């Protein structure tokens, strides 16, 4: 279990005893956490704990099978000190506990996924390809063994990719196309020799993400005072996104498009003007 607790600053003065004791009893709490309302579940003191809780609260999507991931902006919404979040993510990334991926849904969107989840996702994709009787899946084995283990960055260059893959055997152009078709790599638009790492099968979820964001923002902007109580807001369902309201709220609050105000009757979510 994670022993790294940053004692220096509790996230807000509303730190509840539940957050502290949820550290050792994380597994039980993980199931309970789905039923907690967003308002109570909003502040964490530690990045890893926040990541685990959010991963547990990842919405279940029917048609697409995607392992849980957390957006970086969601972490910013829950933990006050963003620099500390960045640094803890960086040290966890270097320890290979989690991986970061750059998403194409916006300027600076990053998704964080635990390494185990990512490997499970890759496995799932491979199994589906095997069912379709695709030939020669050895390149995926090389990818898993050599590239994922050693290259922890968000992107990789063509030369380095070839050199790492050739530790397994001879690399052909088709192998790289196979990796791209499976969704593990994406060519960068600005530079044809660089690839982004990506989460396979995530396309529809990302579409839902950007549409859900727009829907939520437009819904709040159309209201008279551009605000709404969080308690009522989180009961709404978004039409265009398979992800739930809590996911989108965290994301938009963390990226600064919405802000929360504490009032005597609870939290209010408001569209932030610049």
């Amino acid at each position, binding site marked *: 279990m994670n*022993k*790294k*607790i*940053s*004692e*220096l*600053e509790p996230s807000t003065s509303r730190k509840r005893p539940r957050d502290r004791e949820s550290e050792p009893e994380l597994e039980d709490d993980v199931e309970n956490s789905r039923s907690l309302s967003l308002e109570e579940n909003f502040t964490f003191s530690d990045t890893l704990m926040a990541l685990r809780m959010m991963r547990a609260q990842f919405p279940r999507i029917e048609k697409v099978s995607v392992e849980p991931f957390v957006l970086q902006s969601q972490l*910013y919404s829950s933990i006050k*000190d*963003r*620099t*500390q*979040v*960045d*640094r803890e993510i*960086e*040290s*966890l990334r*270097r*320890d290979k506990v989690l991986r970061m991926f*750059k998403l194409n849904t916006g*300027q*600076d969107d990053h998704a964080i996924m635990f390494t185990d989840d990512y490997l499970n996702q890759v496995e799932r994709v491979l199994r589906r390809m095997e069912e379709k009787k695709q030939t020669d899946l050895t390149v995926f084995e090389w990818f898993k063994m050599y590239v994922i283990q050693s*290259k922890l*960055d*968000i*992107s990789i*260059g063509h*030369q*380095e990719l*070839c*050199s790492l893959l*050739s530790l397994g055997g001879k*690399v*052909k*152009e088709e192998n790289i196309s196979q990796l791209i078709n499976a969704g593990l790599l994406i060519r960068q638009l*600005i*530079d044809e*020799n*660089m690839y982004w790492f990506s989460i396979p099968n995530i396309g529809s979820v990302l579409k839902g993400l950007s549409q859900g964001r727009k829907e939520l923002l437009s819904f709040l902007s159309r209201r008279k005072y551009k605000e709404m109580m969080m308690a009522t807001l989180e009961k709404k369902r978004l039409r265009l996104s398979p992800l739930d309201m809590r996911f989108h709220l965290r994301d938009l609050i963390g*990226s*600064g*498009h919405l802000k929360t105000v504490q009032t005597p009757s609870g939290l209010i979510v408001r569209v*932030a003007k*610049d």
Partner: protein
Amino acid sequence: MWKETREREFGNIRPNLFSSRISKSRVSSIRLSNYKEIVSSHRGSVNSLQVDLTEGRYLLAGASDATVAVYDIERATNYDGGGLIAKHKSLFVINKQHEHGHKYAISSAIWYPIDTGLFVTGSYDHHINVWDTNTTQVVMNFKMPGKVYRTAMSSIARSHMLIAAGTEDVQVRLCDIASGAFAHTLSGHRDGVMSLEWSTSSEYVLITGGCDGAIRFWDIRRAGSFRVLDQTRSQFGRRPPLLVRPITSKKSSSTAQSSSAKVRAPQKKLANGNALKPHAVCRVSSQVKTAKQRSHPGMLSSHDRATGHYGVVTGLKVTEDGMYLLSAGSDSRLRLWDIESGCNTLVNFETTRLQSSKAIQMAVSQDSSLAFVPCMTTAKAFDIWSGQTKCTFRGHYENVNCCWYNAINQELYTGGNGRQILVWSPSKSISDEVDEWRKEQATSINQDNWSD
């Protein structure tokens, strides 16, 4: 403040500490000035502001309607509001009607660092003009291949007077005032260069930020950039002053035990970028030696594709001690880089949006503790090491483009698309205000002759 003065009287604190405490307390109380105003003579958005480096008295502003104006910020031209508000009009204005004036927007106007006799303006009409301040005539003119985005001169230069010019063209050009010709060009960027700054610790080092997102360091005495900043290489906060033991390879996280928010462990990831040298080819069918074997050692860095931002680098600012670089990008991120190690210090500045189409000019306070950054219609003061917003300066009606911090009297000047130049100053002490008010009252009583 009086406590500080008493301590200084008794000799408990040294003069430097005394002055830095006073200026820190003044900086923290900066707000829109209610006793000083600059009357802007521009009809276009103000793109560039600079106070001269020798006296700290003259503010040079360049605007989009091709006007350049100089304001005296110490002596007011006239007083208003019963003598309480000092208005500073421009000492002179150069506009399009001037025979050698610029025809399009001026993107950057800087003083000659040695004295205020010359100033240099760069404009979208592809020209860089060097003006004589007293006669307001153009003494030298350089033609560039594209729109000039930024010009800079080194304030610590003793052996050269080169103007570095960043344009739409991929090459950075150095123009020499002494000879009137181009000294040399620096190539390596893959797109235009939107921001550039000279280093404050070495007169030969130039830092440029390009539209391709790369930040490069150039030593002008040799070809090619010697460092390219990569945002994936990071370190945690400040480097420790002395290395405990030599860094050999990627260390396991010793930060887990540290409980301080600012981690100071000597963690450095070996630059994977260095291993990416093109000679480690495993190209599939190639048997041809790459061009790397032939290219000049200085041009190696042009193969380095690392980026500092996921968009255009819109602003750069080097701290006065020459150790850190603040960069702003159109991905709405501000990053703080440690210049010596070339790593991202991972300080997260809470910016929601930064303007992405135009270059912005940032300022850093003298003791490198606060960074003033224009964010859309406000200017924000960030604490450099924690990234928190200390103060938000709201006053402009439209986007703010540039800001300049005057360390002598702790004032901040901001210029924006709304054609205004606003002054933000520490609040005047109450006794001063009451005295002025009393003075005004006294004169009005004398004028109010009831009876003789």
